[in-house]
């Protein structure tokens, strides 16, 4: 079996698993909760549906140069979209995992939005450089964006792994399943970028490794969405828990503030009615009412 056939077979398996995962999500009514994941799968299905026929049509029905041009833009365009959707998936996972602690959830989401914004800005800035062509710029910017998203994904996987019990979740939860699947894809992405750097031809060993990894990711997602998850446990925290304390502090952040008057206060700063209320209050304090 040649490498072409293996790549074609893996592409077909990937397409089929994507469709199956999306159908299972729809059947289990999980699309609303995991909207970015459904969009991710849709983008993946669309890009394969366009790119796969191009590979077989190139040099036959259409010229191979034109086929490659379309293929290039669809591949890198969908890659950029998937990287952005990856950020959104992480955001949703964090949101769902931290749902019982509203204060920490709000604070974490605020921090995540800033981190993601800075990451996108850095990715675009780092893609610039001397003698960088238009195509190289696209490849570098998208790669940088995806690598940042992969690092964030692995941080999220570590967080979910460590906080799974305090958050009332289990290893059969969909939140963990989605993080795990995304973690497989993120680790593969980083390994590919670190060690498999030179692709002499369009058909290479990296396609086979990547194809196998994404099929594993899709199987994990399908499995977790197909099997009903256990109910989330009630979270019981001690009153001295730092989680609880920080949650209360975070809840108070952003509230309408109260005001405290400092310095010398003279009676003419108050309205006559306010002065009268204070006079009566002080009279009651001097002459307490006897029972």
């Amino acid at each position, binding site marked *: 079996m040649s490498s072409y056939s293996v*790549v074609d077979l893996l*592409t077909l398996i*990937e397409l089929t698993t994507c469709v199956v995962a999306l159908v299972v999500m729809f059947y289990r009514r999980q699309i609303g909760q995991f909207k970015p994941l459904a969009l991710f799968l849709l983008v*993946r299905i669309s890009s*394969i549906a366009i*790119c*796969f026929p191009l*590979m*077989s049509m*190139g*040099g*036959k029905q259409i010229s191979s140069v034109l*086929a*490659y*041009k379309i*293929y*290039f*833009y669809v*591949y*890198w365009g969908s*890659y950029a979209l*998937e990287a952005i959707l990856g950020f959104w998936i992480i955001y949703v996972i964090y949101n769902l995992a931290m749902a019982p602690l509203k204060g920490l959830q709000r604070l974490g989401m605020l921090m995540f939005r800033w981190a993601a914004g800075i990451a996108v800005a850095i990715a675009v800035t*780092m893609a610039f*450089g001397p003698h960088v062509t238009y195509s190289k710029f696209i*490849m*570098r910017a998208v790669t940088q964006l*995806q*690598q940042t998203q*992969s*690092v964030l994904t*692995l941080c999220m*996987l*570590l967080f979910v*792994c460590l906080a799974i019990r305090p958050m009332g979740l289990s*290893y059969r939860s969909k939140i963990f399943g989605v993080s*795990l699947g995304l*973690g*497989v894809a*993120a680790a*593969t*992405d*980083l*390994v*590919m*970028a*670190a*060690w498999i*750097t030179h*692709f002499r*031809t*369009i*058909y*290479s060993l*990296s*396609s*086979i490794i*990547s194809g196998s990894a*994404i*099929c594993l*990711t899709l199987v994990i997602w399908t499995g977790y969405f197909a099997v009903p998850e256990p109910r989330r446990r009630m979270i019981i925290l001690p009153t001295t828990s730092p989680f609880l304390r920080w949650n209360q502090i975070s809840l108070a952040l952003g509230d309408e503030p109260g005001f405290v008057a400092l310095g010398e206060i003279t009676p003419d700063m108050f309205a006559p009615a306010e002065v009268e209320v204070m006079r009566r209050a002080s009279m009651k304090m001097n002459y307490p009412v006897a029972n």
Partner: protein
Amino acid sequence: MKLIVRIFALSLVVTGAVASAHIANASQPMAGAKVSALPIPSCPPDGSTSCGIGSQNSSN
């Protein structure tokens, strides 16, 4: 089972950390690729080459 899942998840994190450290220490920027079976288009699209896209058709 829980232990296996936990070890697997942590091994992914460690692998990713080692790989990202390797990327950070690289002398030149690394080219990434989508985690997909689709072949990686690394040649410029405005060139005269098709980067081998029709090669499987001509070899058959």
